[in-house]
């Protein structure tokens, strides 16, 4: 499935695979299909070996070193490099500059502004736009043809990324009901700590998917103030620079103290 939002990126990757470029950077928001496109790039190159690596210095070095020892072609995908430290990014520089003929490195990130220029200058960059509603609807119908019905599912209507759809489809009816009853929570007459707990946990104390909760609040907030606070909260959460409990506490304070 090639979403509309991914078309430009796919074109770029096709070009990069034809010209045997070894260093690729894919930018896109959370759940927009960056790793999916990295695998697509491996398919364009007809390389079956695909390794995913997380942006930690030791892991990056070890993975690349291991792949360099092997003579078979491999595509290494370093996910969300901007989540890791700068040192993880700098650990890549040497390999991006002097890649082996059998190793292709695809780096994904959420925001190119957080990537050092030294990395950007060594990579072909492919950008994925945020998924549109049409993209979401097509994804639902293709991946979940029998079960996903956007018009019946309030949470699917709020989904803003492909991973949101996958998360919603994993929820059971009581979990969906809990999230949809969050409007009762929006009276914000409880303590901040309780509000934060309820936003992030179901009644059985298991964790609730925060992206889905925030999407719901953004779409169905009773006031513009709460909607704005939820948008800000979602933005901070996506940036992943501050702890989740701090972000949610801020949201709870904004709604409780400013309404």
């Amino acid at each position, binding site marked *: 499935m090639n979403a509309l939002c991914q078309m430009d990126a796919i074109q770029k990757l096709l070009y990069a695979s034809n010209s045997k470029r070894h260093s690729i950077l894919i930018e896109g928001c959370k759940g927009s299909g960056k790793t999916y496109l990295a695998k697509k790039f491996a398919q364009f190159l007809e390389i079956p070996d695909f390794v995913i690596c997380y942006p930690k210095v030791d892991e990056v070095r070890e993975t690349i070193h291991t792949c360099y020892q092997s003579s078979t072609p491999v595509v290494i995908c370093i996910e969300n490099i901007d989540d890791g430290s700068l040192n993880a990014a700098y650990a890549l520089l040497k390999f991006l500059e002097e890649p082996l003929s059998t190793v292709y490195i695809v780096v994904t990130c959420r925001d190119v502004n957080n990537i050092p220029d030294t990395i950007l200058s060594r990579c072909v960059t492919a950008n994925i736009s945020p998924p549109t509603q049409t993209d979401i609807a097509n994804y639902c119908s293709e991946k979940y043809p029998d079960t996903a019905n956007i018009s019946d599912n309030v949470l699917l209507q709020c989904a803003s990324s492909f991973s949101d759809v996958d998360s919603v489809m994993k929820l059971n009816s009581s979990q969906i009901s809990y999230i949809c009853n969050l409007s009762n929570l929006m009276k914000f007459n409880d*303590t*901040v*700590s309780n509000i*934060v707990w309820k936003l992030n946990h179901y009644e059985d104390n298991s964790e609730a998917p925060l992206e889905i909760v925030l999407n719901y609040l953004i779409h169905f907030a009773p006031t513009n103030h709460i909607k704005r606070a939820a948008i800000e909260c979602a933005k901070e959460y996506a940036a992943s620079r*501050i702890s989740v409990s*701090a972000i949610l*506490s*801020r949201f709870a*304070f904004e709604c409780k*103290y400013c309404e």
Partner: protein
Amino acid sequence: MLSIQEVGQQILSNDPGKFYVFVGPEYGIKCKYLDIMKKHYNNNFKECDHVEEVLNIMKKKQIIPIEPTLYVVRYDEQFLSTLSDRVASEIAKCKIIGTIVCIYENPKAVTKLSKYLPDYTVSIDNVNSQFIKKYLSQDFPNLADPHLSMVVKIADNYGQAKLICDSLSRIPETIRNQFNQADVNFLSGYEASYSDNHIKLGVAARDFRYLCNIISNIPSLDSALYAVLSVLVELDKLLDKPNSQSDYQNYAKSWSRQDIYYMFMHTYEVIKMSRSSSVANLEDSVVWLFSLLVFSSIPSLEDLR
């Protein structure tokens, strides 16, 4: 080896043995025992460089008998290196007028000393805080019990505690009586490692002076900022539920909802800024944040822009 109890019993009952080897890290207790023995020998006391020197004095025939004296030999490596069964036998047979005390701190010396001089060697290790306090109360009867407790809390051993008490005892009583733990820490140059709980307490109490005193000893400013957020959430809970159990219950009444909200927002902004590479000095930002606690009403973000 001798036990510290046996040696303590001998020395405190004014019946010291003729030869001791003090090893172990607790220098203060060693000095205490030496002081007691000095008094026992009417302050006839001599510091010598070598054990051999003292043994030679004892072997020499004296026309005028020598007075019982305390001889102290510190860190005589020559004695240690030549220590053998022959030397041990010589010491056992030697008629010592007074007491010879050899002092070592190197733990490596213990093996050789306990092998050749087990009947004279005692390891004086760090004593527990209860004993330290007991000795201090005997040494400094003019110091109040709370101050002794404060000193024991920060001292690593009896010797260090004694030095701090000595300083404290020289301060006029009227001033000394107002001292709290922070003052005792400051006097002794004690740099505590502060935990997040100290930060939370300082913020809840709106004690800017205390927070400034400890800021340079905070292991992680980032963790401290999250501690500030955490205590503000706790204070919010206390305003909604005043009877809930909390360490900060007594401080909640000095916080209004507005203050809690603005302080939370300011702290959050400092954390956000700290994620940016353009922040020059996080400590300055944290001091600025703490300074807001001094205001009777914490200013809003708009007030400060």
